């Protein structure tokens, strides 16, 4: 009998019911349809069309209203079920949560940096309109601005408003407990207004503060006010002595990231003794300032760029003596200027992190599958009773969502733990690194990660489950399984390859770091203490007074108990103060040689000219290779002498003897005789190139800022004594730093150490995830073949044969992954070449060690499921099928 055709109204009602959860429809669907049919027929018959319409609208509204409630109740049930399953399978739960937590953690952590550095606007009012101006000549490096130039830009610009200047200097501040060396930011009046910074207390600078002869005033940074002044609420109005003038505190800044440099205090240009000198103001070539501006409304950075370039051309035309050919100027957005270097690295890291998350997802999907083999029966039944793939997907997705949210929680904790390392790493690339934190955006990102993870791993599992369930029903072996296996195999091989590339990167970094630590610094840093100081320069204008200070200080220090030798110098090797300046390559001195008419540019540029007292070389353990060191007889008035380092001797005179030649560092005004050649030292950090160096005698050029002490035993204990000695010689001296040279050496590799740690962390993470992937894939493989293994064992296969077969299965994929990884690593490690020190990116030893390490770890990961396979009881295996 043909089935009677269903009326449209009933069909419509059936369709409407589909917005209710599957379970509800399964339970009540057909009953509801029947009830509705009766209700519809009777209402139409007894009450007419209008009543029927009313009934329809009530029914539709009712179902729409109840659908969310019913779905929520299913979700609650699913979550409860998922939690029960998690508790029942602690091994699976721990594995999956760990893998996802690592994946989400690393993404959240990298995103926190990307967010703070690249995405968030600058922490200033309309920060995106701020631009920084730059001048360049034909040589690399930027040229700073002079007062004359700043005035020209202010006068001629059409695109920028409020051009402000900034430079930073160190001064000694008196008025506290002891003299304090402070970093002073010297800024023009509108500086804080341009950045939109409002003072926490008092006021910032107004144009009157900037007028020549104005009473000197100071604005303190929040950090200085808190740390040095103890957050004194009555600080405004307090008077400090600086550069022999009273300076009145007029305000305190709020806690803001300070750009372009961090300063303790700020002063207006009129208070800086160098910037305010009339001859410096008049000198177009006296360049020491940076220049910032704000785009006028409606003006683009490009407009500003051409505007600034135009002004530069005008200046060059009007003052040809001050500008060489190739002089140009440009403007760039402060925001992009601050992050140019960090952008590619952070984006590359985020890409790699995304990939880590993807393989974490795939592995969790695999783990879920291995576990689901046990639930196959349940899924088969559910499909048989009509659960659509959508419904199964929902159940699986809920389970993965619960897992992912737990993992995201742990991931955020991991990210919080790694923030310091990440900020350290990023600070090598951008000053915005200090803004890195876990904020609402980062938390939202973690949740997005968790959701993405859920969708990927949940649906992968559901997709497989559909194939597997079908298999279970038909008991057939269609091609779908082969393709599934292929996908899983490719997945494993690709994550082995990926972690191999990362491990090679990390391995190279570690080797490079070891090489760095093995570098001969050219001096003996053990037991040497360096204390740096800054005198009140106004009191020490004459060379005699400065030499007298050094003499008295040395006399005191030499006679301290436990001191085996001591020296004073203008600086010392690996002095952090020096390294920062000198690494910029701007710091070069050319010299003339008597009787040599070659231009300066053809002679090697000297990177460091150090003033040192006679015992400097003995104290630091720098060998005198030929000639002699400084003697007490090299005093003021005696013929000036100079020492050079070995590299300079070789570069400038090749095989000829440099001794007794006369050279000048001041364009020929004074000549010094080379009396000795000393060993090379790594002055500015552990870098491959040795800087060319010269030394002048302290008595002849008294410019000292450090005292160096070699201790008989423990140098650190001497720090207090040396500090006291300096203050005894002159209590108006600020002690700026006290460190041992071993510490200085450690600090000089802080940056590569951070980079190495970052890479290693990443690599270990990828390795862990890949190993978990191999293990879970094999576990699934073993589970799916329990019956086959059972039969093999029943037919006489030994456990070790089974063991070998499973391990072979896994290691075959690892082998493919390693080969692909090798090719990838050779191709990609060029990327990290700039981070490497005396290590070839294709270093054989690193490749061999990493290959062995990865293979060994993979072998262990394979061994665990293989052993389980070998322990299968053939009878139980056959029975369970």
């Amino acid at each position, binding site marked *: 009998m043909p089935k009677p055709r269903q009326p449209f109204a009933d069909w419509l009602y059936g369709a409407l019911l589909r917005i209710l959860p599957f379970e509800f429809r399964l*339970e009540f669907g057909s*009953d509801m349809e029947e*009830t509705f049919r009766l209700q519809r027929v009777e209402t139409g018959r007894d009450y007419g069309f209008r009543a029927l319409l009313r009934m329809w609208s009530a029914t539709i509204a009712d179902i729409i209203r109840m659908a969310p409630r019913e779905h929520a109740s299913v979700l609650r049930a699913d979550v409860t079920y998922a939690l029960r399953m998690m508790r029942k399978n602690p091994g699976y739960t721990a594995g999956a949560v760990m893998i996802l937590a690592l994946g989400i953690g690393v993404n959240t952590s990298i995103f926190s940096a990307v967010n703070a550095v690249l995405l968030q606007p600058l922490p200033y009012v309309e920060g995106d309109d701020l631009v920084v101006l730059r001048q360049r000549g034909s040589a690399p490096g930027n040229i700073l601005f002079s007062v004359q130039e700043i005035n020209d830009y202010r006068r001629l610009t059409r695109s920028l408003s409020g051009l402000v200047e900034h430079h930073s200097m160190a001064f000694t501040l008196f008025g506290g407990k002891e003299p304090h060396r402070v970093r002073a930011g010297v800024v023009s009046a509108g500086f804080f207004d341009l950045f939109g910074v409002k003072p926490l207390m008092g006021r910032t600078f107004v144009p009157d503060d900037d007028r020549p002869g104005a009473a000197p005033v100071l604005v303190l940074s929040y950090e200085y006010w808190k740390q040095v002044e103890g957050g004194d609420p009555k600080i405004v109005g307090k008077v400090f002595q600086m550069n022999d003038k009273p300076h009145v505190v007029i305000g305190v800044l709020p806690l803001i990231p300070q750009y372009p440099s961090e300063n303790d205090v700020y002063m207006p240009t009129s208070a800086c003794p160098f910037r305010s000198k009339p001859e410096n103001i008049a000198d177009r070539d006296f360049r020491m300032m940076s220049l910032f501006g704000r785009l006028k409304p409606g003006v683009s950075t490009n407009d500003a760029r051409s505007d600034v370039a135009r002004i530069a051309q005008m200046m060059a035309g009007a003052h040809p003596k001050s500008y060489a050919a190739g002089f140009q100027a440009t403007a760039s957005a402060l925001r992009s200027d601050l992050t140019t270097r960090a952008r590619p690295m952070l984006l590359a890291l985020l890409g790699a992190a995304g990939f880590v998350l993807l393989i974490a997802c795939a592995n969790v999907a695999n783990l879920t599958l291995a576990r689901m083999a046990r639930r196959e029966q349940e899924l088969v039944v559910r499909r048989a009773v009509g659960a659509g793939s959508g419904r199964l997907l929902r159940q699986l997705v809920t389970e993965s969502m619960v897992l992912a949210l737990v993992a995201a929680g742990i991931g955020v904790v991991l990210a919080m733990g790694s923030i310091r390392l990440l900020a350290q790493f990023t600070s090598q690339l951008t000053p915005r690194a200090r803004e890195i934190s876990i904020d609402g955006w980062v938390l939202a990102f973690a949740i997005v990660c968790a959701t993405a993870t859920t969708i990927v791993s949940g649906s992968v599992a559901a997709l497989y489950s559909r194939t597997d369930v079908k298999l279970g029903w038909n008991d057939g072996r269609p091609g779908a399984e082969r393709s599934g296996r292929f996908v899983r195999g490719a997945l494993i091989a690709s994550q082995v390859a990926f972690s191999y590339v990362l491990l090679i990167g990390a391995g190279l970094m570690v080797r490079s770091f070891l090489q760095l630590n093995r570098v001969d610094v050219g001096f003996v840093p053990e037991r040497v203490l360096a204390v740096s100081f800054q005198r009140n320069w106004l009191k020490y204008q004459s060379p005699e007074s400065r030499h007298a200070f050094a003499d008295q200080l040395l006399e005191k220090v030499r006679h301290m108990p436990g001191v085996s030798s001591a020296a004073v110098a203008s600086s010392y090797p690996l002095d952090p103060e020096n390294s920062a300046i000198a690494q910029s390559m701007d710091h070069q001195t050319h010299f003339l040689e008597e009787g040599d008419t070659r231009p300066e540019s053809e002679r090697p540029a000297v990177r460091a000219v150090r003033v040192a007292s006679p015992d400097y070389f003995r104290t630091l353990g720098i060998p005198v290779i030929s000639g002699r060191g400084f003697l007490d007889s090299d005093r003021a008035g005696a013929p000036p002498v100079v020492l050079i380092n070995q590299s300079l001797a070789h570069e400038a005179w090749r095989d000829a003897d440099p001794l007794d030649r006369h050279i000048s560092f001041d364009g020929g005004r004074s000549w010094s005789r080379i009396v000795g050649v000393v060993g090379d030292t790594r002055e500015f950090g552990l870098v491959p190139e040795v800087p060319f160096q010269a030394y002048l005698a302290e008595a002849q050029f008294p410019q000292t800022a450090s005292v160096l002490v070699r201790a008989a035993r423990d140098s650190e204990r001497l720090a207090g004594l040396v500090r006291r000695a300096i203050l005894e010689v002159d209590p108006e001296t600020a002690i700026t730093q006290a460190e041992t040279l071993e510490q200085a050496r450690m600090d000089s590799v802080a940056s590569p150490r951070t980079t190495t740690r970052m890479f290693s962390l990443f690599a270990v993470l990828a390795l862990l995830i890949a190993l978990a992937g191999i293990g879970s894939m094999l576990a699934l493989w073993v589970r799916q073949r329990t019956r086959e293994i059972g039969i093999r064992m029943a037919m006489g296969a030994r456990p070790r044969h089974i063991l070998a077969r499973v391990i072979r299965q896994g290691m075959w994929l690892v082998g493919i992954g390693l080969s692909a990884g090798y090719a990838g690593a050779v191709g990609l490690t060029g990327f990290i070449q700039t981070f490497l020190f005396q290590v070839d990116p294709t270093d054989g030893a690193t490749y061999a060690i990493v290959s062995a390490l990865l293979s060994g770890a993979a072998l262990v990961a394979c061994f665990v499921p293989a052993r389980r396979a070998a322990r299968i009881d053939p009878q139980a295996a056959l029975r369970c099928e």
Partner: protein
Amino acid sequence: MPDAQSPLTPAMFNVMLALADGDKHGYAVLKEVAEQTAGEVQLSTGTLYGIIKRLLAEGLIVEVRRHPAIENDDQRRRYYHLTDSGRAVALAEAERLERQVERARSKQLIRALKPV
């Protein structure tokens, strides 16, 4: 049994009342509720089966396999039966409502009504 936190809604009580004098299928419940309340309470199918689901889950009603002997009965229809605990809950609710009406009367809120 439902706890104190989940009191019966008027609609639930009406459904239970409809089942108090015999097992019924969904449409019969719907119809009886409408008739008993003189059309004041008109349940839609969605609300009805939402209530049935809840009453089933709380054990206040059960589905019965044995259908009452009714002419033209469709064998696919499902019949519901008020359980003993359901009956007790419905009774408790009725008594509660009665006490409330009593109170309203003692406050002379419903003077117009004749005493019972």
